[in-house]
């Protein structure tokens, strides 16, 4: 979808400009424009407006990130240890490099160096592929460790833990397996804490078992973060038993996947656009007289880079 705003008038230039207007000297000029300059400016303004929408589109996610991190900083400080700064850094460099080649491509298009332009576009394309490959490795590794959003985050890594979950009494579960659910429920019952209700008589019926989805005893102490790691050392792979894990760690991964995922989608769209540019370029569509699509495609690609420039510190450089 993102590529759309560039295509219309760039297509428009391709066709239906023969009859009904006297712009013969500008083969790429659409009938409703007076001068190529006007057309170029329009395309550019249109693209910038679209980029503005992209900024706001991600803006929503940035706001969500800000609020979540603001609410429970310990979660972010803790979870960031699961992200590989080096991989992230490499990815940043790859993306910046591809951004540079893109800028060069535009420059070569402006100066009719079509071969060089194609080479740069191909390099950009490969940069995109590299980025996605590295992302793929990051994702798979995390998913393997159950470092995902929501309930999936709490899937016990192996059978024994699953057993414990089934049979352990509430307090132990809360201690050994501080799921957001038990914690939330423990917190969620103000009654006992707020008023001194008469102690409930012992029931003739056995207590209901307490599992991950069971209820904790309302009086149970809430599980908030123990002191989060002073050192940046990697936590145990069996992170589910990590006693230092703060409540709601899953939220970090929720927003992490949301933001990097959406960015990833944009990278893929960018690859499609660049691919299209390469194809058109090979067919000799572009030159100093007409390179709007290259220019606009470039703008889009730079924004993809731009967003990553902010995602990187927000996720990988948390301390």
């Amino acid at each position, binding site marked *: 979808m993102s590529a759309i705003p560039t295509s219309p008038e760039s297509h428009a230039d391709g066709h239906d400009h023969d009859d009904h207007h006297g712009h013969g000297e500008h083969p790429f000029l659409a009938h409703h424009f007076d001068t190529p300059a006007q057309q170029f400016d329009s395309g550019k303004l249109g693209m910038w407006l679209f980029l503005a929408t992209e900024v706001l589109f991600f803006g929503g996610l940035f706001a969500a990130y800000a609020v979540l991190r603001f609410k429970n900083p310990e979660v972010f400080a803790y979870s960031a240890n699961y992200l590989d700064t080096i991989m992230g850094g490499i990815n940043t460099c790859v993306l910046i490099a591809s951004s540079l080649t893109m800028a060069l491509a535009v420059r070569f298009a402006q100066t009719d160096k079509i071969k060089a332009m194609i080479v740069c576009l191909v390099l950009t394309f490969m940069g995109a592929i590299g980025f996605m490959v590295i992302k793929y490795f990051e994702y798979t590794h995390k998913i393997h460790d159950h470092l995902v959003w929501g309930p999936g985050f709490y899937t016990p890594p192996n059978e024994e833990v699953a057993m414990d979950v089934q049979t352990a009494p509430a307090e132990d579960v809360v201690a050994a397996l501080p799921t957001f659910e038990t914690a939330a429920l423990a917190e969620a*019952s103000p*009654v006992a804490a707020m008023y001194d209700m008469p102690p409930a*008589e012992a029931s*003739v*019926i*056995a207590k*209901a*078992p307490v599992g991950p989805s*069971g209820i904790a005893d309302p009086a149970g102490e809430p599980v908030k973060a123990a002191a989060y790691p002073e050192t940046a050392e990697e936590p145990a792979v069996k992170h589910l038993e990590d006693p230092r894990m703060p409540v709601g760690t899953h939220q970090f991964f929720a927003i992490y996947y949301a933001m990097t995922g959406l960015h990833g989608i944009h990278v893929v769209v960018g690859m499609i656009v660049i691919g299209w540019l390469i194809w058109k370029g090979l067919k000799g569509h572009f030159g100093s007289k007409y390179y709007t699509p290259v220019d606009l495609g470039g703008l889009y690609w730079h924004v993809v880079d731009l967003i990553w420039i902010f995602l990187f510190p927000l996720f990988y450089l948390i301390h």
Partner: protein
Amino acid sequence: MTLPPATFNALLATSDGATFWLPEAASTIAGETDFMFDLINWICYFFFALVTFLLVWFAWRYRQKSHSHEGFSAGPTHHTPLEVTWTIVPLIIVIVIFFMGFKGFLNFATPPRDTYDIDVVAAKWLWTFKYPNGASSDDLYIPSERPVRLVMRSEDVLHSLFIPQFRIKRDVVPGRYNQVWFQSDDPTGEDEQAAYDLFCTEYCGTGHSNMNRKVYVLEETAFEEWVTEQGQWLDAIPDEELYFKAGPKLFARCANCHSLDGGPNTGPTWKGLWDRSREGSTVFDDGTTLADHVGPGKEFATPEDYLRNSILNPGNHLVKPYTNAMPTFKGQLNDRMIDAIIGMIKNVDEFNADGSWKNAPAE
């Protein structure tokens, strides 16, 4: 704003203290709200009359007689002083209104220190009001001439507590406490006609429009009696009589979704529920039957245990074909209450469809 609303309300007063626009005012902040409402009304009446008059008058006075062009583009194209005037005047008016409304809002938003706190739990689609002594009720009972604060939370989705006669409203948001305070000096007694209305004003699904209750304002002493009586009613009942003495009272809340006579409803009927549970023939949406879960070493020691768990964690096992619509009653029912309900489920045949006990001695 201590100017009594009577000044304006008198003009449109109807019998029961309600006005043409507003219902009866029964809380201490209502006066201020009504005053603002009426003040704004009169401002609106004025400007509305002004605009409409000019509109009709001009439209008639300057209507085009023929196609002739005389009068085309006559008159001034702009008149800056005039335009500045009708920019400034409304500005001043709204600034004043804002500050008056803001002051009223502060009174609404900040409770005094010595409030009588009531804990409110909203769930689809019932309210539970819990009083400091552990008593709880479905309708709201408050002492008169004393500031009351409701500390509200929701078990499931957004709800909103609205008492028109008090002019107060506050959303009940899951995951947090919202508070609202008010004081009423007009006791209603336990008379349902006189009692005030309490609505849910945040859309919450099927039962949204039936999530309304009554508000009873009792004299200090009457309230004390009521609340102590409510706090102790359960203790008075011996265990073996629990299910038919306490059961029907508790069933009133279950009745929203469960029938006793096998009638269809949001949740499973209680008729035959015990037999199914004992045989373990209940089928869950994951295809397993209850038999797979009950027994030594299994999830539930006994069928009762399963029933208890279904009241506390309804989401654990969903009975086909029902959805996960039931709120948890954890923290709302203590063990004896749960015993009473389970007892009632066991002896469901002893009860009429309305929950009353068949063998009750006729008084």
